[in-house]
C-alpha cells in the first residue's frame, strides 16, 4: 500500500507523443535542418522559436509527414505521420497563402469534421475559435484575423491529441491573439500536446512550458522560459556617465560594456555593487535605468553569431 501511495505521489512519467531524431532536410544546397532532435511529451506546450528561415516550418512539416527527412526519423504516436490512422490524432494550422474563397465558414467546418472519426460538435468549435456570427460568411469576406481563427478551428475540429500551430497569431489583432492563447492553454489543460512556432517572444513566454530555440537549422537552446532567460546572466544598467569603458569593465560582475549615442550600457551579474561604485566614482552620472533581461534579450544573445 505504501508503495502505491508513493507511486501516485510522483507525477506520471512523461509520455512521448512525437519526436524528431537526428532529422536532416536539405532544399538543394541549402540545409534547412541539420540533425535536429526534438521530443514532445503528452500535455505540454512547446514553442519552437527562431528567426525567419531558421527551420521551424520544416521541422513541423517533417512531423506532419508533408516532407520526408533526408536522414534521421520523424515519429508521431509511435507511427509514421503519413499513416491515415495517425493523422486522425493530429491537427495542423499551417501558413497558407491562399484558401479557396467561395466556401462558407460552416461549410469548411462541416468538411474538415468529416475527415475525423470523432470530431467536436460544430457549436463547440465555433465557440472555441470565436467564429460565432460569421458562420455564413464566405472565406473571401473574412478579415485576416477571422481567417486565422477559421484555420485554427480546422486544426482542432477533429479533437486531435496533438496540435501543430505554425505562426498561429500572424495577422491577428490583440484581442484575437489573447483569445487564441487561452484556447492553447485550454488544449493543454485537456491533456492535448501543442507544438507552436512563433517569432513573438511574448507568445512563447506566456504559453510554452518549454521553449526550443532553433537557428540555422540547429537547436541552440532548450528549456523552460525561465531557463532560457537565465542564459543571459545579470541585469542591464543604462546611464549617461563620463567613466571610461576600461574602468567600467573592472567593476563587480560586469560582463559587457557598450556606449551607444552617448548612453553607456553595462551588463553585470552583481548590479547593485556595480551601480554603487559607479555613483561614487561619477557624481555627474544621470539618466540611470536598471532592467532585467527579457526573453527577447536571451533570444538575441542565443541567435546572434555563435
Amino acid at each position, binding site marked *: 500500500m505504501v508503495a502505491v501511495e508513493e507511486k501516485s505521489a510522483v507525477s506520471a512519467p512523461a509520455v512521448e507523443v512525437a519526436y524528431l531524431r537526428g532529422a536532416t532536410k536539405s532544399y*538543394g544546397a541549402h540545409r534547412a535542418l541539420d540533425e535536429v532532435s526534438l521530443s514532445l511529451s503528452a500535455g505540454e506546450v512547446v514553442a519552437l522559436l527562431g528567426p525567419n528561415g531558421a527551420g521551424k516550418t520544416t521541422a513541423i512539416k517533417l512531423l506532419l509527414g508533408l516532407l520526408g527527412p533526408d536522414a534521421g526519423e520523424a515519429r508521431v504516436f509511435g507511427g509514421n505521420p503519413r499513416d491515415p490512422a495517425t493523422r486522425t490524432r493530429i491537427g495542423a494550422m499551417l501558413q497558407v497563402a*491562399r484558401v*479557396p474563397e467561395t*466556401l462558407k465558414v460552416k461549410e469548411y467546418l462541416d468538411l*474538415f469534421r*468529416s*475527415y475525423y472519426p470523432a470530431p467536436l460538435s460544430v457549436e463547440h468549435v465555433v465557440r472555441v475559435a470565436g467564429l460565432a456570427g460569421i458562420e455564413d460568411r*464566405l472565406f473571401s469576406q473574412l478579415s485576416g484575423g477571422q481567417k486565422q481563427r477559421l484555420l485554427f478551428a480546422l486544426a482542432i475540429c477533429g479533437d486531435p491529441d496533438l496540435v501543430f500551430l505554425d505562426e498561429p497569431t500572424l495577422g491577428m489583432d490583440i484581442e484575437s491573439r489573447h483569445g487564441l492563447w487561452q484556447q492553447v492553454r485550454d488544449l493543454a489543460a485537456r491533456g492535448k500536446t501543442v507544438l507552436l512556432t512563433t517569432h513573438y517572444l511574448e507568445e512563447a513566454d506566456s504559453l510554452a512550458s518549454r521553449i526550443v530555440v532553433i537557428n540555422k537549422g540547429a537547436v541552440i537552446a532548450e528549456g523552460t522560459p525561465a531557463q532560457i532567460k537565465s542564459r543571459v546572466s545579470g541585469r542591464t544598467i543604462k546611464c549617461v556617465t563620463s567613466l571610461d569603458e576600461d574602468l567600467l569593465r573592472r567593476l563587480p560582475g560586469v560582463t559587457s560594456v557598450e556606449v551607444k549615442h552617448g548612453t553607456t550600457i553595462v551588463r553585470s551579474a552583481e548590479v547593485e555593487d556595480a551601480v554603487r561604485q559607479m555613483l561614487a566614482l561619477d557624481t555627474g552620472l544621470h539618466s540611470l535605468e536598471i532592467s532585467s533581461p527579457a526573453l527577447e534579450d536571451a533570444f538575441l544573445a542565443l541567435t546572434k553569431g555563435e
Partner: protein
Amino acid sequence: MTTMTVAPRFPLYRKEAKYEFLRLLRARTFTLATIGFPVMFYLLFGVVNSRGHEILSASKYLMATYSIFGLVGCSLFGISVTLSNERNLGWLEVKQASPMPAPAYLVAKLLTAFAFATIIFGLLLTLGLTMGHVVITGAEIRNLALTILGGVLPFASMGLMLAMVVPPQAAPGILNLIYLPMSFCSGLWMPISVLPHWLQTVAPVWPTYHLAQIALGGIGFGTQGSVTGHIAALAGFTVLMLGLAIVLFRRNGAKS
C-alpha cells in the same frame, strides 16, 4: 477505447465532392467562362444558323461539338487552375496534413468535372431542342451523353498533368493557349471539312478530334476513322497524361 481509427468513408467523399462543386459553382469567373462560352457560342453559331428541321443540321453538329468544347473547358480549368493554386499556395498541404484520403481530393475534382459537363450538355441540348430545331432520337441522346461523360476522363487527366507544370498565376492564360487552338483545329467550332487541308491532316494529333468523331458518329454524322480507333487514341492519351502527372508529381516532391 472502441473509437474508430478513421472517419466513415462515404460521407467524407460525398462532402469533399459537394464542396468542390459548390465552391466552383460560386466562382463567377469559372462558371461564366466554362458554361457561358459554350452556351454563347452555341446561340451565336448554332441556333442562329439553324434552318428548319434537317436531320443533319449545323445546329445538331454544333450541339455535340460545343458540348465537347464545354466539357474540355470545365475539365481542364476546373482541375488545373484549382490544383495549381492549391498546390503552390499552401492549401493542398493543409489538406494533406489532415486525415483526408488523397483519392477523395482527386475523386471530388473528377466528379465536379462530370457535373459541369452534364450541366453544359443539358443546357445545349435544351437550347438545341427548343431553339435550334435539332432532330435527335433518344438513342442518339444516350450516345452523346455517354461520349461526353466518358470524354471527361482524358481531359481531367490532361488537367491533372498541366497542374503539375503551370504556375498558378499563369495557369488560365497557358490553358487558354492550349484549349482554344486545340478546339478550333479539331472541328469543335466549325465542321472540320471547312478547315484548311493541312489542318485536317494533322487533326488526329488532337484528343478533342477523336472525341468529336465519336460524338458525331453517335448522332448519325459521317466520320473519319473507326470508333475503336478513336477510343484507343483517347485511352492512350489518358494513360500518357496520368503517367506524366505521376512522374511530374514525384519530381516536384523530390525537389521540395
